[in-house]
């Protein structure tokens, strides 16, 4: 059996190998060298590579992103880490106005090869300002690349590819993926930043998804299989660019399409994917496609409301039945007897 690593371990290994192989790479973020090391992803790296390669930083997300850009145009390859996407909101100016445009607006004379890791929180009351999933904001900006790896394999390969890419790349990591294990090769490798992956082939309906919603889509595919429906699950992996070709080919086979995103449904990645599939594969679609995402509501903190807020596999399966025109009913949901569904599995305990 191939070596298994958990998601956070795969991220740590990617950074360790980048630091070991490229003297221009450095790592910076509030708490990066700290005792908990960004949920384990940077733990011990300063001890291993030195205080001249792995940095803590002032609580200045805005200027420090500009500082990282300044080092990047001078040939460095910074990796900036934000423990929550919500803090990265403070760095929108240097990301959107500056880093995204420095190659274009200076006529190709400069490159801005910085990588920004942002963690999407969820559960245990992360609430309005610790759980936002803002990939659509970044995807909207030309010049940025935006990826959302789902598996430990892709987490390592996409982070390495992001750091080696000459464009600024946003890497969004869902906190609920961190403890999931999967096969990860030991040597450094790259996973392309612009290709979706068919993670479960199927015939009847395409379930496309970003990040953690890929796992919910896989659960939905299991539910549908119980009804004799074969669902194809596509992990988008990249949200800018979106791999439309893979989606169009999949819909060409299944003729039915659902997309699930970890972010808001309106003005979101799901909306963009649905529009693109409708434009490029309208003739393949046998029924109206459906997007699934968060409602137009800030994240509530109490589990009593948060459990209503996040869509689950059953919602995806129901949407699939709807677009298939099926009146089959899903069996009663007795698989998860937990009172609250605000942690991905019982190994998660608060606070986190």
């Amino acid at each position: 059996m191939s070596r298994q690593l958990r998601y956070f371990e795969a991220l740590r290994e990617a950074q360790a190998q980048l630091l070991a192989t490229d003297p221009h790479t450095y790592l910076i973020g509030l708490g990066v060298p700290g005792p908990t090391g960004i949920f384990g992803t940077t733990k011990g790296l300063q001890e291993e590579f030195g205080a001249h390669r792995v940095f803590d930083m002032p609580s200045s997300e805005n200027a420090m992103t500009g500082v990282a850009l300044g080092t990047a145009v001078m040939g460095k390859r910074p990796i900036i880490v934000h423990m929550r996407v919500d803090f990265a909101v403070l760095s929108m100016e240097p990301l959107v106005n500056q880093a995204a445009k420095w190659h274009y607006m200076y006529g190709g004379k400069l490159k801005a090869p910085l990588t920004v890791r942002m963690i999407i929180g969820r559960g245990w009351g992360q609430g309005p300002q610790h759980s936002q999933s803002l990939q659509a904001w970044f995807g909207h900006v030309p010049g940025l690349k935006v990826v959302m790896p789902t598996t430990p394999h892709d987490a390592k390969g996409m982070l390495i590819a992001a750091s080696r890419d000459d464009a600024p790349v946003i890497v969004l990591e869902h906190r609920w993926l961190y403890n999931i294990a999967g096969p990860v090769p030991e040597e450094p490798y790259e996973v392309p930043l612009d290709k979706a992956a068919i993670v479960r082939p199927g015939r009847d309906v395409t379930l496309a998804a970003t990040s953690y919603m890929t796992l919910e889509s896989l659960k939905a595919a299991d539910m549908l299989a119980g009804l004799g429906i074969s669902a194809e699950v596509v992990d988008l992996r990249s949200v800018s660019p979106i791999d439309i070709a893979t989606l169009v080919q999949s819909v060409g086979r299944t003729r039915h399409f659902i997309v699930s995103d970890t972010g808001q449904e309106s003005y979101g990645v799901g909306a963009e994917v649905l529009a693109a599939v409708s434009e490029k594969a309208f003739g393949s679609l046998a029924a109206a496609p459906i997007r699934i995402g968060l409602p137009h509501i800030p994240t509530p903190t109490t589990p009593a409301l948060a459990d209503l807020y996040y869509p689950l596999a059953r919602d995806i399966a129901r949407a699939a039945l709807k677009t298939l025109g099926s009146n089959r009913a899903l069996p009663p949901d007795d698989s998860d007897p937990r009172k609250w569904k605000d942690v991905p599995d019982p190994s998660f305990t608060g606070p986190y």
Partner: protein
Amino acid sequence: MYRQMLRIRLVEERIGVLYAEQEMRCPTHLCIGQEAPPAGISAHLRRDDLVFSGHRSHGHYLAKGGDLKGMLAELYGRETGCAAGKGGSQHLIDLDCGFMGSAPILASTISVGVGAAWAARMDGRDQVVVVYFGDGATEEGTFHEALNFAGTFKLAVVFVCENNLYSVHSALDIRQPNRPIHSLAAAHGMIGLHGDGNDADVVWRLGGEAVARARAGEGPSIVELATYRWREHCGPNGDLELKYRSDAEFAEWQGRDPVRIYRDRLVGEGLLTAAADATMTAEIETEMADAVSFAKESPFPAPEALARFVYPS
């Protein structure tokens, strides 16, 4: 320094005249009246030192050695422009002379300049980075964040604040408390220098001190230079009719013309003759005429240039 100031003045005045032709189709912020800071600061910089700037950057670009043809072609939107026509007046760049870029979002290049200084430190180079900005930029949060970091790491940066009293049309005294901008230096662990930004000798003395400190690894400085913009915030014209500043204030600052002050001083000290001044002016006029011709005769970018450079290839 006199030649630099005279060249900046003449170039800006020429742009002011040509702008009326409606062929320079980009926001353009002229620095007439503010020629002394770039001349006095750049006099201390090596070619491999780095400069970042904001929206009013023509003087900084030219004084650092930025190519005049590339600048004018950029204003005219030509493919030979220093940013291939993608940037315009607000995004000048000339890597050959260390002019690393300018951007109009207030304070946005300050942190980038600090980052460039940090990269120089990482690589063991003794480059000095100069970042120019105005009084308005000191009200942005990122200004303080960037200075905090530069002060913490004692980076080789000279923060040059050209205080011209107005952010667009909003006066300094309704935007900031009654304390000098250079006093903010202490809050960020650096020294604050200040002086008459219309006197090139004063600028030269302050710039020399700040650049020497940075070069010697003694840390960053703020150099606050009192100066004044003669034309409208953006564009080639005067703007006294807007009444946000008084005729008397304007007249007082015009009486402190940095180019004339320095010319008179050099003449008085016997260092400049009328003939030499005339020769210098003629040489600059010729250079400008060549650069304008070059720009106007250069082709516009081809349609296929539209999508080029969105991502590095």
